[in-house]
């Protein structure tokens, strides 16, 4: 692509090509908006912090998340256990840190599958038109006809409870939204004069998609994906809470709440800590997503009809 750049400043190597892109981005309107948008800073900060905790945190915690210590069970917050201990005497703070890794990895994995699957199908439908388009969109309609969590629940249940199966279940139920948005946007871009021009000088479809359609539908996808990371965290926690996701003794936030519900009165910190962690994570993704939406100027991210997770 970059060899195609015209004009004076020909990037001489891949590195400088990348640097050039970064520089251009910094100068661009999006770059400016990003620096200024408070929501992005706050949300981005939260997400980065969580990412750091997820990557580094498990190495720093003094306890083993699965180590039981029945003699110190259901202890309230103290210096040794800042967030208390659970019914098996495990340190809640340690488990929270380990849970961050699972939640984030799961969210990223499921969202990535959704994005790739949905974008591909959406573009394919928009470009092919005709029967292919109709068939793919019917497929999306069918997926959307199931309430997301119910479908995920059943898939995860049928496949058997495990984290991998949660990823599969949440990917299967989420792609259609992307497909619809990408298709709607691609169809709109397709009618824009610059795509018509590209057809005029004989650009093959493949290249029209890569050069003109994809870069111009990427913004809504980025925004939706960011917001989706939050909902996937929520949904995954929900599945685990119901017992269909991560299995004990894995330290997962939803599982932790499920484990704490029997001690609601005796040890309210057991559900409070993971609840706050989930909410904090989702707020971070939502802030980032909202901020990106403003910065990338994609107010009309939905195709007017279906926005769902």
């Amino acid at each position, binding site marked *: 692509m970059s060899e195609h750049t*015209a*004009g*004076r400043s020909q990037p001489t190597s891949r590195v400088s090509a990348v640097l050039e892109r970064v520089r251009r981005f910094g100068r661009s309107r999006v770059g400016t908006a990003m620096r200024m948008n408070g929501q992005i800073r706050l949300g981005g900060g939260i997400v980065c912090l969580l990412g750091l905790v997820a990557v580094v945190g498990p190495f720093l915690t003094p306890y083993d998340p699965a180590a039981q210590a029945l003699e110190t069970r259901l202890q309230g917050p103290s210096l040794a256990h800042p967030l208390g201990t659970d019914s098996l005497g495990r340190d809640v703070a340690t488990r929270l840190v380990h849970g961050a890794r699972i939640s984030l990895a799961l969210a990223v994995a499921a969202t990535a599958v959704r994005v790739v699957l949905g974008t591909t199908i959406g573009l394919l439908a928009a470009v092919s038109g005709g029967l292919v388009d109709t068939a793919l969109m019917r497929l999306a309609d069918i997926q959307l006809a199931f309430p997301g969590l119910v479908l995920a629940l059943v898939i995860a249940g049928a496949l058997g409870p495990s984290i991998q199966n949660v990823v599969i279940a949440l990917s299967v139920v989420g792609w259609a939204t992307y497909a619809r948005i990408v298709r709607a946007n691609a169809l709109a871009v397709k009618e824009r004069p610059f795509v*018509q021009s590209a057809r005029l*000088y004989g650009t093959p479809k493949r290249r029209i998609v890569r050069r003109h359609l994809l870069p111009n539908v990427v913004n809504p996808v980025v925004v939706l994906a960011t917001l989706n990371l939050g909902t996937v965290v929520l949904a995954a926690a929900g599945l685990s809470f119901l017992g269909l996701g991560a299995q004990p003794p894995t330290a997962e936030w939803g599982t932790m709440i499920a484990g704490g519900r029997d001690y609601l009165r005796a040890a309210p910190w057991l559900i409070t800590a993971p609840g706050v962690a989930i909410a904090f994570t989702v707020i971070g993704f939502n802030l980032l997503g909202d901020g990106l939406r403003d910065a990338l100027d994609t107010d009309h991210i939905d195709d007017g009809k279906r926005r769902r997770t």
Partner: protein
Amino acid sequence: MHWTLTTLTTANGGEPEMTGTLSVEDLHVRFRTESGQVHAVNGVSFEVSQGEIVGLVGESGCGKSVTARSLVRLEDPGEIVDGRVRFDGRELTTADERTLRGLRSTELAMVPQDPSTALNPAYTVGEQIAEALRVHRSPDDQPFFSELAIGVSSRLRSRALQSRVLELLETVDIPRPEDRIDDYPHQFSGGMRQRVLLAIALARDPSVLIADEPTTGLDTTTQAAILDRLADLNDSRDMGMLLISHDFGVVSELCDRVVVMYNGTVVERGPVEAVRSNPTHPYTKALLGCLPHRSEPQSRLPTVGGSPPDGSASPDGCAFVDRCPFATEDCRGAAPPVVHVADNHDVRCGVSQAREATLESTLAADDDGSLDNPAPAGDPDARQPTPATVVDGGAVRTDETGGERTGDRTAEPTIASDPAATAEKPSATAGDDATAAPTSDSGDTSPVVELENVHKSFRESDALLDRVLPFGDDETVDAVRGVSLELRAGETLGLVGESGCGKSTLAKLVTGLEAPTGGSVHIRGEAVDGVDRRTNEQLAEIGAVFQNPGASLNPKRTVGESIAEPLFEAGWDKQRRIDRIETVLSLVDLPLECADRYPRRLSGGQQQRVAIARALALEPAVLVLDEPTAALDVSTQATVLNLLADLQDELGLAYLFISHDLDVVRNAADRVAAMYLGRLVEVGPTGRTLSKPTHPYTQALLDSIPGDRFGEGSSDLRLTGEPPSPTDPPDGCAFHPRCPAATPECSRIDPDLESVSEGQSRCLYAPDWRDGAGETDQHRVTDERRATGEQQSMPRSSGDQR
């Protein structure tokens, strides 16, 4: 302030006893944006008296709309920071919400800018008019819940209101109002919505009507009808009117007085005739000078140098200083004084030389200096009287020989700007023996593009069943019905017609974005299909430029990348691509640095130049230009038209030039084709066709050009109604239902396109319809005057340099 003083001493002053006078004094409106304050209006003063029509003119962003909205206190999100708005002695800038409601519902009515968005889509037009009537009756008593409930039912309950609403709909010329009263806005065309908005305004029986660009975006025929209606209303109701427009023609057609705005200030004001015939401020001169109809056909258009200010800083001195060839140091430092020119005619310019200068001398060179083009820059006389940057203000293209220049043109050896590049051109021209410059093959008069009885129909329904199954009762729309045309090297064919007439579809058939459903398109004699089936050589022959320059470039790709695309597809290697980008950028007068920029960092005019550069990249023989200047301000339009003319001279291009603006076509085209309901109704040389048309439709289009008919009464051939639906074209001559000269024959016989004096016409009475009725004699006078280049209608033609 000077201006305020002058306000009091001129015109009918601000005496409070004058009823129905709306006056603005030293109005300042500011906007707060993230990047600082924008001073949209900087001290505007004028007034509108009862029965008077005042025009407010200026280019986009000059603050005219903000001013209009401030008058009814709808300036939000802007804020009025200084100045007064008075109506009948009442101060509006400090009035409370209740007073404002009273004034809005009874005295000051505004017709907003965009008819497509100004009507509430959720309520019937009848209800929206009735609401205005109800509010007018009792502005202080608006029952919340019953008003909310009214929205739930879609029909008007009250008989009395209904008859009044019908009356109003009739007043604004909506046909069959009783059938339309319960229709929703989306069921109306743009022109009809504008009429509904007018009816809403009239429901208040206002003393002053403020119309913000009431005809922008409408066909000229519709525009003419609405302007007529406004003039009638002004006559019959003795209503004051403020007409805001970017179009000097519209304003001069209707207004008594005109106020010219530039960057938030009034630069000139006076009686419309005085300002038109004797523009005094350099900006007014520039604005008038750029209008295509001022110039000789096929002449270079004068342009204004520089770019308009963005209002980010409050200017101390004259706002026009950076673009004015007469600017002195004083202009920069202090606010220019207001000078009294004649009765009621004032100008805000302190340099007498500037005020007295000829119209052309205020116009700058249009940056074409860099063009290595021997043809147009000539005429040294043009430089003579001007103190500053004037080049070729009125210069005529050297090959200009009236309407017949095609023959001369093709005989001229065309020198390509970059012979090397030309030589490298892929052997696109199978029919041509010479590879160097195909268009220089003067002996070859065979057309580059030829349409033979081309048809294009679209299916109405896109439903799956209709697409899959061969049967079904989906209607087809015949967008193009049997068009035959030829386009030769070096000529410009102007294609005119109302919106929906099929001219854009015709353009797509030529470019190949659509494939014909009947007939054939030939490029250099070879029949071609849609783009997907054209060879690289055929693709290279045709370039296209679209209306909206912003949308025709991929926002994610730099200018260089965009221009390189066609070259890449044609298989050019990298070095050749880079060379070619340099060449075409210099052809369109853009600096090389542009190659690394993204489109959004360019102005509209620059974006359009890039689009032209990309269209030229593969050295096409034909450019299809679909409304290439419609989205641009007049001064930018002039530079783009000049550029196109230069490129044609230099490269021998053929243009298919589509425009709704007959003045632009008159300037640019050698031949004109008028299209109606998918068919050509008239084809002929520009000079003859646009002065003595042989089809009533062409005449109607001409008569709807605003401004030209000023002072000639209302006997023009005006079109009533709107074009019929292309799904169901009328029997006989398609134009007969709207044709004033139609006879019973016309509804039976569908005429062919037959040769008539130098052209072709599709009218049964083509040779003699204009001589038929005595009343049409007047047209003749008008037309003859037009034919002579409009000198008589422009008293200031002494300024023309030829």
